[in-house]
């Protein structure tokens, strides 16, 4: 069983707020296939750091506005 990634993302919402950008357009701007954009959006694939930065640059936001990771220190607190 493949361990699911804990990284979540807001790509779908960001695409919507950026003129309803299509997955194909985002894919062409970051140099990946549309299938890869779909996999990233659905949390089935964690992109490279470089691709993550490219996505953030396309939307003109910071990296952690696109990708989020749960704060483990909060979970460890009883």
């Amino acid at each position, binding site marked *: 069983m*493949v*361990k*699911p*990634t804990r990284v979540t993302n807001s790509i779908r919402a960001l695409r919507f707020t950026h003129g309803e950008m299509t997955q194909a357009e985002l894919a*062409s701007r970051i*140099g*990946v*296939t549309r*299938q*890869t954009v779909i*996999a990233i959006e659905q949390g*089935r*694939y*964690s*992109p*490279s750091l470089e*691709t993550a930065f490219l996505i953030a640059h396309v939307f003109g936001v910071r990296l952690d506005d696109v990708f989020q990771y749960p704060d483990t220190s909060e979970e460890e607190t009883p």
Partner: protein
Amino acid sequence: MAHREKRAWIMLVVAVVAYAIYVTIVVGRTGGRPLADVPYAAALLWTVGASIVANIVAEMAIGMVSPKAARVADARDRQIGQLGDHVGQSFLVIGAVAAMLMAMAGWDQFWIANVIYLAFVLSAVLGSVAKIGMYHGRLPQW
């Protein structure tokens, strides 16, 4: 569907169909005699040759109907390809070791040739299944 996923499907279908045809031919020739006495070499070589040609022709056909942009592979495609090939190669090693042990134990050439062919088929099938599974699911995380 990603271009490389289509290629994985082609390899899977061609490997399964070619092996099914080969097994049908060889089993159909038994006629009550032991399997190891059945002439198999020509059928095996023709099946392997035909499956290579079928694979190339099918890949060329989907290459011609797909737009150039759809044929571009990215880092995810390459990762899936490498992991799938890794899965497939493990069966080649298992087949080679099995064939070596069978040769040392004096098994008939029929069984040695066929275990190697079966390893090639399993390598193609399981490598393709792994790739298709990764295209629809998640990539392993380390």
